[in-house]
């Protein structure tokens, strides 16, 4: 990996990481998108996407809401894909690296969320003293600083990644590979569990069963769109009935899991 590639990668990663702030959460952060950038820069889009797809699944349920803890899936998935492509060891190697990164980077995020509160105080003071024009510039300055911080940290990771890839490229013994494979499978189950935790409500269990059995027992006769359409129809029917019965007041169970 050349130094130019590393800088490009760090830029792309910082870009994807910051879309939540700069572009209103338009989902550049998803591993399928980040791995595409990695593939473009390292010249292997198809394999990068295959790795990205696996990260997407592990982290399917990671959301910035509800009872679910946050993980920096962007940086984790991004750097994991880089390692996988560099070492030629596939998803298992990528995961080994990406999991600690996603947790470490979340610490950085928590730290920034506190530290950058300094700028909030500054803005309050400015307004108090009648300086109205600096709100946007102070806010944007802080935001740019955060991108630079992300860029720098990722670049440091990338500089270290060559050595890591080298070590991994010698391959694993079979037991280690099987073990990592198993760990990856269970972690993808955790991703879906997080998704359930966001949405689960006892009254919604029957609908979960419908979706699950339709997919599991028909041998993929339906795809996502087909089953989604059935789900839409069910939701629609429920809406019509509940609406006719009394304007929805029948739905007493307010779902607190959704609250931010």
């Amino acid at each position, binding site marked *: 990996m050349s130094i130019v590639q590393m800088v490009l990668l760090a830029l792309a990663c910082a870009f994807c990481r910051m879309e939540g702030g700069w572009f209103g959460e338009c989902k550049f952060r998803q591993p399928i998108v980040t791995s595409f950038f990695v593939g473009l820069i390292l010249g292997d*889009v198809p394999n990068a996407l295959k790795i990205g797809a696996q990260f997407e699944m592990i982290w399917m349920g990671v959301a910035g*809401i509800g009872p679910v803890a946050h993980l920096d899936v962007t940086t984790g998935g991004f750097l994991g894909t880089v390692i996988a492509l560099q070492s030629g060891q596939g998803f298992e190697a990528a995961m080994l690296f990406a999991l600690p990164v996603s947790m470490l980077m979340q610490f950085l995020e928590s730290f920034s*969320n506190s530290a950058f509160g300094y700028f909030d105080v500054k803005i309050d003071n400015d307004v108090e003293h009648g300086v109205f024009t600096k*709100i946007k510039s102070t806010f944007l300055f802080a935001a740019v600083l955060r991108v630079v911080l992300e860029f720098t940290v990722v670049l440091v990771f990338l500089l270290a990644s060559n050595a890591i890839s080298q070590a991994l490229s010698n391959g694993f013994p079979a037991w280690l590979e099987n073990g990592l494979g198993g760990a990856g*499978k269970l972690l993808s189950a955790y991703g879906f569990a997080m998704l359930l935790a966001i949405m689960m409500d006892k009254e919604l269990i029957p609908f979960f069963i419908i979706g699950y059995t339709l997919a599991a027992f028909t041998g*993929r006769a339906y795809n996502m769109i087909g089953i989604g359409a059935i789900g839409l129809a069910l939701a629609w029917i429920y809406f019509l009935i509940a609406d006719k019965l*009394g304007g929805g007041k029948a*739905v007493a169970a307010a779902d607190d899991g959704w609250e*931010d």
Partner: protein
Amino acid sequence: MSEYISEKNNITKKDFIKCFWLGFLMQANFTYAKMQGVGFCIAIQHILRKIWTNDEDYKHALQRHLAPFNMTVAPSPLIMGISIAMEEQAKEDYPDYDYEAINAVKVSLMGPLSGVGDAFFWGIIKLLASGLALGFAQNGNPIAPFVLLAVFNIPNFLTRWYTLKIGYERGQSFLGELEQSGKLQLLTYCAGILGMVSAGCMIAMWCSINCPLTFTVNDAEFVIQDTLDEIFPCLLPLVFVLFGYNLIKKGMSSGKITLILALVGFVLGMFKLVG
């Protein structure tokens, strides 16, 4: 059509377009102190300046909208629209207006609106976007990221624009009616139905956990997974998802759960029970 949205305060369509775009920046410096508060303020700052020409009043307006704010971002322009409408009303009634009401309305709408927003954007649209893109990505098809971004962002952009418009034009009455009639909860619940059907489908389709163990009995190969499939296809994914779900419900931290599942998976994988 007139270029002016609000003639008396000289607010044009251009101002609203600017507000729409600035709204995307709302979390650029997300902090624990104000959360999206400053971002909210800069999105409507230029419009506040037009409404409040007097510096002292403008200052108070800015301070009102620098208050901590936090909600699902996609429908947040609705509250921007409502805030603009209320500020205009405040000026009209000047000085007899209950200014506290502006932030009270903002705070009271954040919760329910986030509820509906999360249900739709995280529970349905994000799920659908990831799910549709996954199939392409697994085959290494470079169209995958574009599918994901398009499926997510078309509703995202439309929601942002129309909620800003509805928020300004119909104001609190719109949401108030929805909430009082119970329709907002009903809508959230129905989004939950669709979300759960999709989640069930996705677990069966995309979470592939198998048991690769095989026995040879009297020269006949015996594959455990085949037997499992005959009884209950995709059983293992369901078992492990529910296991993970239980750990979450026990209030365990995500770091701990990740560690537990990684360890259990590693051991099971080593003995080829899971793969």
